[in-house]
């Protein structure tokens, strides 16, 4: 079908769109809030964070979008993702189609096995959280550290500040470690994309 209007329209790429996706309880929404707060300390940027989740407290699909732009952000939801984090196979299957052709795909290699592209970064965030950062609960924070390294959308220092502002008292060190490990592991993978950390 010929579209006399739609064919003429190209959505301008004046925004950077990030989606964190997984299942309820993995901390995707909190992760997106921390990321938005970390990016928001840069006063030249506008940031909008939105979320979508089900009525369950745990389980069910959960996703959160962060849109960053130096222009006014009209539409608050993501349209063509520049970065997609998938922490479950279900979220991989559901949201891959929303990723821009040049977008960055990041998956938890311990939890996501079927990946419809060769072009992705993989790290076992959940396993790293459990075995190296001290608690499985900080898997989202490990992933945030990796996002900072993979995309450069936020500095490690701003991210740590934002994480610590949200971390419950007594968990500061675990959370700081989680960012550091995620960042360091991602840098290794980024230098050598063929090197994929296995589960």
């Amino acid at each position: 079908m010929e579209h006399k209007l739609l064919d003429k329209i190209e959505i301008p790429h004046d925004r950077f769109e990030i989606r964190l996706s997984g299942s309820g309880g993995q901390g995707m929404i909190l992760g997106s809030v921390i990321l938005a707060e970390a990016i928001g300390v840069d006063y030249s940027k506008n940031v909008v964070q939105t979320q979508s989740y089900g009525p369950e407290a745990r389980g069910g699909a959960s996703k959160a979008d962060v849109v960053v732009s130096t222009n006014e952000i009209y539409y608050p939801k993501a349209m063509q993702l520049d970065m997609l984090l998938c922490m479950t196979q279900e979220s991989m299957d559901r949201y891959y189609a929303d990723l821009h052709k040049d977008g960055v795909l990041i998956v938890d290699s311990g939890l996501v096995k079927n990946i419809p592209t060769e072009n992705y970064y993989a790290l076992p965030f959940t396993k790293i959280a459990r075995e190296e950062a001290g608690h499985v609960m900080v898997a989202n924070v490990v992933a945030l550290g990796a996002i900072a390294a993979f995309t450069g959308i936020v500095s490690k220092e701003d991210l740590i500040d934002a994480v610590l502002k949200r971390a419950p008292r007594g968990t500061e060190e675990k959370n700081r470690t989680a960012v550091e490990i995620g960042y360091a592991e991602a840098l290794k993978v980024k230098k050598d994309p063929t090197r994929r950390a296995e589960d």
Partner: protein
Amino acid sequence: MVDTQRTLLLGNLAAVEGAIYAGMRFYAGYPITPSTEVAEGCSRELPKIGGRFIQMEDEIASIGAVVGASVSGMKAMTATSGPGFSLMQENIGYAYITETPCVVINVQRGGPSTGLPTKVSQSDTMQARWGPHGDYTAIVVAPSTVGDTVTETIRAFNLSERFRTPVVVLMDEIIGHQRELISLPKPGEHQVINRVKATVPPEEFQPFRLTANGVSPMAAYGEGYRTISTGLTHDPMGFTTNKPEEIKVKLDKLRNKIMDFRSEITKLRVEMMDDAEIAFVSYGSVSRAVLLAVALARSAGVKVGLVQLYTVWPFPDNKLRDYCQKCQKIIVPELNMGQIVHEIRRVMPPDTEIHSLQRYDGEILTPMQILEKLEEVM
């Protein structure tokens, strides 16, 4: 100038900021998704500034407590969603007839009934106008961004106090659960209106005195005035009446005190309408998708514009007609099965082509869906 005071604020907490700025010091509510963060924010902030927060046993009691606080002299608010808004209707009606200023935040979710607790909807647009039974005129405002939510909540309190009437802030899940970097208003940046208080000697006081503008000066319980609140139709003294001439005067007062000032109450955002041949009319979160769609269509040479309703009720009949007079076609995107579109059909000349664009599957209309509709009607 770089504003270093920006904060990443949740839409629901923006409503709390706006309310406190406007002088709200009493909140009663019953938490319900997606409005819960309004209650959480009030429970954190109000005790710090000498206010009161009460979690009531349900929504019926919540709005009852809000009305009680207001007639005792406080600026009071509640917030709810979905089924909670339905439960509140009887006492919102009580607030209309007793002319009690108060603000009800409705963060809309999908329905009917329990419906979709975490999904967006604009399907309470008519309920916000016609929820309680009986004849009355409602004021309903609708923000579309986190920043708007602060200013529209302030405006809601101002209108409520000025006209002695409940005001509904019609939010939705996307606005309520969205965080944006905003600058909070500084003291003095926005006008804050307080209700007109009784100044006459107590023996001359009439709680519903007929005045030129229809608004009766109010006395709080405990201030030394004999004042009455009854849900029965009443005369200027507040005494129950069955006299046709007094009944009519009361109902006219409820309508005219608002409709005589409609042009001051209605507020619209008008974008690119000067030469527009096709207009979008929208309100709430969907307006943001429309804004992007309009910008994209303009870049492709289509003469299209947006009229966004910040005041949904009373409906801005004259202003809308004026802005859209050159448009042969109007598209009305709503996250429901078509509600405000009927008002636009009522207001516009019969030869205007009016198209309803509906989405009611729990998701927001996307800019591309809006552009597809535009192409279809072009």
